[in-house]
């Protein structure tokens, strides 16, 4: 079983601060997805990165896939209370029998205080 270690598990910051969430593995993934989950709802996809070294930006969120495709990071600039939620990274496995299975990290609970 491939494992994804996500850190930190909890993050409590003030509005306007920057933060970074990390997702690390000893295994190579063919893709890395980031999801955000709000209370009472299922996770919703934020972004997918598939190429080593790839950087994607979504407004104040910047996602990076490591060169070796073993790690990823999510950086939020000038966090806002609306960014509060659970952030999950998930690695995809290539191959004919993978059927789109994803391995999830433990999640980061982000709280942004006004």
């Amino acid at each position: 079983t491939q494992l994804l270690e996500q850190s930190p598990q909890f993050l409590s910051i003030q509005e306007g601060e920057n933060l970074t969430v990390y997702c690390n593995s000893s295994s190579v993934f063919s893709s890395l997805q980031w999801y955000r989950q709000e209370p009472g709802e299922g996770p919703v996809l934020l972004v997918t990165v598939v190429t080593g070294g790839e950087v994607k930006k979504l407004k104040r969120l910047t996602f990076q896939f490591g060169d070796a495709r073993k790690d990823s990071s999510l950086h939020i600039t000038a966090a806002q209370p609306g960014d509060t939620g659970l952030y999950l990274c998930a690695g995809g496995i290539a191959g004919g029998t993978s059927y789109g299975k994803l391995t999830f990290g433990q999640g980061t609970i982000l709280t942004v205080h006004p």
Partner: protein
Amino acid sequence: DVKVTQSSRYLVKRTGEKVFLECVQDMDHENMFWYRQDPGLGLRLIYFSYDVKMKEKGDIPEGYSVSREKKERFSLILESASTNQTSMYLCASSLVAHRSSPLHFGNGTRLTVT
């Protein structure tokens, strides 16, 4: 938009009961998944299905079974519920067996076994 609907938001069952969790998706997706979500553990895959009547074990299948008689419906069955199966259960679907196919989640069923 893809809609994944889980039949119950909250369920309370007694130890030893047989429990059915139902999930329906409306976008003709081939793949369907059942995850359980526990604090600090992220999402763990219980079972998945890549076609009607086809199923594969995930990482934690013990104590569970599944049924997929129609493409749009994927059921999770707890043959004899136990207290350690108290958890949030998330159903998801994805379009094709591709490395970067996003998962579309339902809003979850919070199951309590007493």
